[in-house]
């Protein structure tokens, strides 16, 4: 009965109802859009990091600290024989990391030199270009990332000299040729580093078949490496990415909060700004024999029904849009993808997690419930005779 009366109220409110429902619709759309984009971005960023850098997980030498280049000279070991087979099968990719210095245009730039087998097919790094065909090449083919290229003014075809200490501590120098500037969205394989062939780097630093890292194709692969190695799961590697994104999401939450606020205003407006109008209405309803509980329920239902209609409208009108965003995505302007932030690739695809959507709907619903209940409860507590004296 009350539900029916509430429905009729909404029908009777005409344009005002339409306006309220539209606002709730926009709020829901906005929230879903932001959340979907954020989740999509996060997934893309994780996938990219997996494809370019960390695989399904990796082992690193226990001395290795990627933030401290002084550790590099002690953080490698000979690849055990049983792993060679896995490397051949492309199940594992070994990477050797050394530190060095580059002299682009005479300026000194400290770098990490990373060796990756040219024939690996696990990571997206274009390692085929690193293949050295001559036994004593005049310069070493090197791949760098776009950030590295930009900050040092390097481009494809450039020759730069590179100095480094080998494993025995002897200084050595070599010319490298930038054979490719790779467009990688993962800055942690890009900034301040050059990629050369794994075997070539080994011989440059007077080693053989030694590696700092083993990247795994399959999480379940057992390497039995012993205590000199430490396993870093994919989840752990992603932690810093996630932390960064959490910070970015805070911005998204502000927008979501603003949108929610807007929704509350829409409900409140109908429910509370009209207090004086409502006073007399509520007085009349009391005179007609409604209990306070019934009156509160009536106005609460009214508020919630707006929400229900807003949700239905969102489902009908929003679904095609969100499906499009989730499957086709929206192309990013060139400037943005040039920023080279993790997860920003050419097209942004949103991602919708049913649980997240449910959670957001429940949140909006609870807030709506509260926003419609509160003013009604306040007014209905008034004495009937007083309420009746209110102006129309």
């Amino acid at each position: 009965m009350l539900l029916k009366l509430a429905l009729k109220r909404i029908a009777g409110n005409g344009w005002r109802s339409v306006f309220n429902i539209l606002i709730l619709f926009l709020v829901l759309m906005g929230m879903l859009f932001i959340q979907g984009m954020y989740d999509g971005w996060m997934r893309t960023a994780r996938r990219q990091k997996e494809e370019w850098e960390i695989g399904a997980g990796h082992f690193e030498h226990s001395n290795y600290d990627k933030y401290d280049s002084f550790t590099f000279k002690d953080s490698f070991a000979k690849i055990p024989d049983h792993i060679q087979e896995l490397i051949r099968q492309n199940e594992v990719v070994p990477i050797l990391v050394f530190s060095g210095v580059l002299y682009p245009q005479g300026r000194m730039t400290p770098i990490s030199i990373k060796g990756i087998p040219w024939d690996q097919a696990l990571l997206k790094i274009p390692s085929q270009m690193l293949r050295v065909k001559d036994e004593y090449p005049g310069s070493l083919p090197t791949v760098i990332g776009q950030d590295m290229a930009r900050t040092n003014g390097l481009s494809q075809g450039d020759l730069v000299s590179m100095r480094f200490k080998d494993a025995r501590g002897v200084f050595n120098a070599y010319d490298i040729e930038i054979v490719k500037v790779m467009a990688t969205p993962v800055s942690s394989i890009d900034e301040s580093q050059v990629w050369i062939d794994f075997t070539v780097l080994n011989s440059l630093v007077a080693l053989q078949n030694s590696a700092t890292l083993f990247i795994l194709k399959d999480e379940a692969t057992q390497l039995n490496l012993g205590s000199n190695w430490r396993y870093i799961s994919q989840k752990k590697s992603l932690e810093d990415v996630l932390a960064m994104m959490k910070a970015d999401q805070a911005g998204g939450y502000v927008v979501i909060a603003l949108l929610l606020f807007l929704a509350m205003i829409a409900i409140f407006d109908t429910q509370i700004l009209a207090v004086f109008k409502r006073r007399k209405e509520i007085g009349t309803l009391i005179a007609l024999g409604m209990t306070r509980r019934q009156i509160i329920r009536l106005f609460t239902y009214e508020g919630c029904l707006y929400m229900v209609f807003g949700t239905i409208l969102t489902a009908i009108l929003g679904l095609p849009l969100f499906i499009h965003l989730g499957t086709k995505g929206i192309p990013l302007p060139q400037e943005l993808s040039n920023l080279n932030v993790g997860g920003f690739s050419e097209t942004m695809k949103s991602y919708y997690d049913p649980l997240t959507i449910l959670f957001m709907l429940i949140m909006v619903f609870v807030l709506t419930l509260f926003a419609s209940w509160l003013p009604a409860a306040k007014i209905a507590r008034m004495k009937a005779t007083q309420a009746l004296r209110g102006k129309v």
Partner: protein
Amino acid sequence: MKEPLVKIRDLSKLYPTGGGGFLALSELDLDIPAGAFMALVGPSGSGKTTLLNIIGTLDSQTGGEIEVLGHKVDTLDARQSAALRAEKIGFIFQSYNLLPVYNVYENVELPLLLLKMDKAERHEAVMQALKWVGITDKMKSRPNQLSGGEGQRVSIARAMVKRPKLVLADEPTANLDTENSVNILDTMLQINEETGTTFIFATHDQKVIDYMKRVVTLIDGKKAKDDLKTGN
């Protein structure tokens, strides 16, 4: 003798105000039998609305006793008084108090929804009530599309639709011209005579007073006169 519909003994109402409160009603004794068609008259501030509100269980007295339809008003809890109003008491207000978001039909139907009457029965009763007040043709209109006379007729229909025992009308003609006033008074008198419904008015309006079978005059919250008219 039959118990009166409303039985008032030594009733008083003290409004709490700054200096010790304001005594709006005092030493009031009144019996209103079923089928009455009567008015409370008196100068502004004499307590007419206050008494009507207490009879209508919207308020309660601060002294004395009042029984309405067999219930002591001050012993009813909110739920019971709401039920009593929903079932047996109709209100007619000076400014009609129609609910603006509902149309005429829905306004009249509302009291029946509260009584959980089924749809067919409801429809019949609403149509009957609209017919009584002669406003069937406007049943899809919104209250703001009605003239004053039409609005008040809808509010009479709303009060009558549940066939209440008692109808309370506070200044029902104050916003109406003579023609419309006479019109609705005719309607109410007719309903009173056909159904035996008790009507209690509060009014200053001589046109209303002329229609009454009984007129109780209040002055400063006390009963000053109680005239039973004959020949009407």
